[in-house]
């Protein structure tokens, strides 16, 4: 398909979507649903995700009682600042966010922001990060061996969450134990690792989440050349957070039940399939609380360390 025809096709998708929106009375208040995937190149273009967003919007409109008299809009963004604006909008009623984003930006907004569900994917209700390296001779064989080396990641949690929660390493000091580089396409990095060109530098390891690991394992050509050298503890997956004026426990419970039953709706089932999820699930709030405590404890230690460092520098200048 030519670029022109491709653009027309995208345009026609927009036209197809438009009547759905127009069919809803314009004077209805909006219920804004925000999907946040910071740094994920695949979340950077809402137009290309339209088939998924359309299905999710239709299912939420039909199945969530609190949305029945509202005009549902679903937005997807990879930009943390855009996400922050959308989530803070008066119309925002629901967000699907990664745990790091929740801890850093939403957790303090209580009782407004309540976690009501999580999003299992590929049959996994928890997230585990993994470090993947080449099987070639001389490649790093452990997390220790990666200290000071370069690790590359596509999207994923922010550095603070990686430091404080994913790499629960008390001896590692305030930073990550390796140099983390972010990329917009991990496949290019994988190929550089398994088939390095002459004189070309490449990352020493790939940091991946469960979904990306599964993707790598599904490639029968490259996976035999790679291996996992480290896996994180089980951590929370993406969280579904209720936003807006506090609706009380009963309303949150009703919304959660509607989400858990979203697969009963055809568009909902297809939206879940496109998310590679079997359906929303109840969150493990105890596990989330443990992660939050860990995050806060490490944050406090980092602040202490920064203060001590500042005092030493000041003392040195004074002396």
């Amino acid at each position: 398909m030519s670029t022109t025809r491709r653009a027309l096709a995208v345009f026609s998708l927009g036209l197809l979507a438009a009547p759905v929106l127009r069919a809803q009375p314009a004077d209805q208040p909006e219920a804004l649903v925000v999907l946040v995937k910071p740094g994920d190149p695949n979340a950077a273009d809402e137009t290309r995700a339209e088939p998924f967003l359309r299905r999710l919007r239709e299912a939420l409109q039909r199945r969530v009682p609190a949305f029945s008299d509202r005009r549902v809009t679903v937005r997807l963004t990879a930009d943390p600042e855009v996400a922050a604006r959308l989530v803070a909008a008066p119309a925002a009623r629901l967000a699907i966010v990664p745990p790091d984003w929740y801890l850093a930006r939403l957790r303090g907004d209580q009782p407004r922001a309540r976690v009501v569900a999580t999003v299992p994917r590929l049959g996994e209700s928890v997230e585990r990060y993994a470090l993947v390296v080449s099987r070639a001779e001389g490649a790093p064989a452990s997390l220790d061996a990666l200290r000071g080396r370069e690790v590359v990641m596509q999207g994923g949690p922010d550095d603070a969450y990686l430091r404080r929660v994913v790499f629960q390493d008390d001896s590692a000091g305030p930073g990550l134990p390796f140099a983390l580089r972010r990329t917009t396409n991990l496949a290019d990095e994988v190929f550089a690792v398994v088939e390095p060109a002459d004189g070309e530098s490449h990352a020493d390891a790939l940091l991946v989440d469960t979904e990306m690991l599964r993707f790598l394992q599904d490639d029968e050509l490259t996976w035999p050349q790679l291996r996992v050298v480290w896996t994180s503890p089980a951590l929370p997956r993406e969280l579904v957070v209720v936003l807006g004026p506090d609706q009380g426990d009963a309303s949150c419970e009703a919304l959660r039940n509607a989400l858990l039953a979203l697969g009963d709706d055809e568009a909902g089932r297809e939206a879940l399939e496109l998310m590679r999820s079997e359906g929303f699930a109840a969150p493990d709030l105890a596990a989330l609380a443990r992660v939050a405590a860990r995050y806060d404890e490490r944050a406090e230690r980092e602040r202490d360390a920064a203060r001590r460092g500042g005092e030493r520098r000041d003392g040195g200048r004074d002396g």
Partner: protein
Amino acid sequence: MSGALATVRGLALFALTLALGCRALTRETLPDGAPAVPVDAEQKTATGLAHWRARPRTVAEVAAAWAELDAAARATPAGDPHRYERLTAAARCAIWLARHGGAAYDARTFGEAALVLTNTAVEDAPDRAEAYYLRAVAAGVVAQADEMQGMDAMQRIRDDARRAAELDPAFEGGGPHRVLGGLYLESPAPPVGVGSLRRALQHLRTGVELAPEHPGNLVFLARAERRNGADSARVGALLDRAERALATVDDDAERAYWAAELAAERAAGR
């Protein structure tokens, strides 16, 4: 059946949508039994091929070819030395109709028909490239019509085109490398898709080495080079070669398709 420019139009799906479902493509094969009504498979093959080879190649001619060749393939029992050629010939017709037949030839229906034929051919002769190559193209056609099958299609395209490239890299003007290059070029980044500009360049450069005057190889390589930051003179030279190569394409629909791709690429480079 050589000379057909089975392409990767279906791959455009992956540029259109980042929402690729995990529903499985059909694994069905043709039943291995004699047809209820006896069919002269040899005669039908001859007639079908005559329609396919007719120029200009029109929808009516290819539809007639499809009817004859599909019947011939279905009437040919497993183990018959002619079955593979009949299956792949019928698959080509189905793919062509899915791509160029218009509204009367539902792309998903004909794409799935091509999948069943090529599934059967791959099972019959797992060491021959053609059926893998055609199955990869058919998977792209189906995925374009139904994004819910997108993920499986993407993996099928990748795996089949790789196998075809191992068996016969030069098949149809470096077709397996062209398919792989197009797939890596147009797919989204992982884990949603298999997209990789580095990999795309690798396959498309190989494709051009194998078939330096294939318009598809040249247009796709020009696109990949442009996205990789190549200067406009290099990209323009590739497109000029592609334009000259178009004259060698004797299938009007295919030539129009590549001409449109070429024009789009020239516009993108301005």
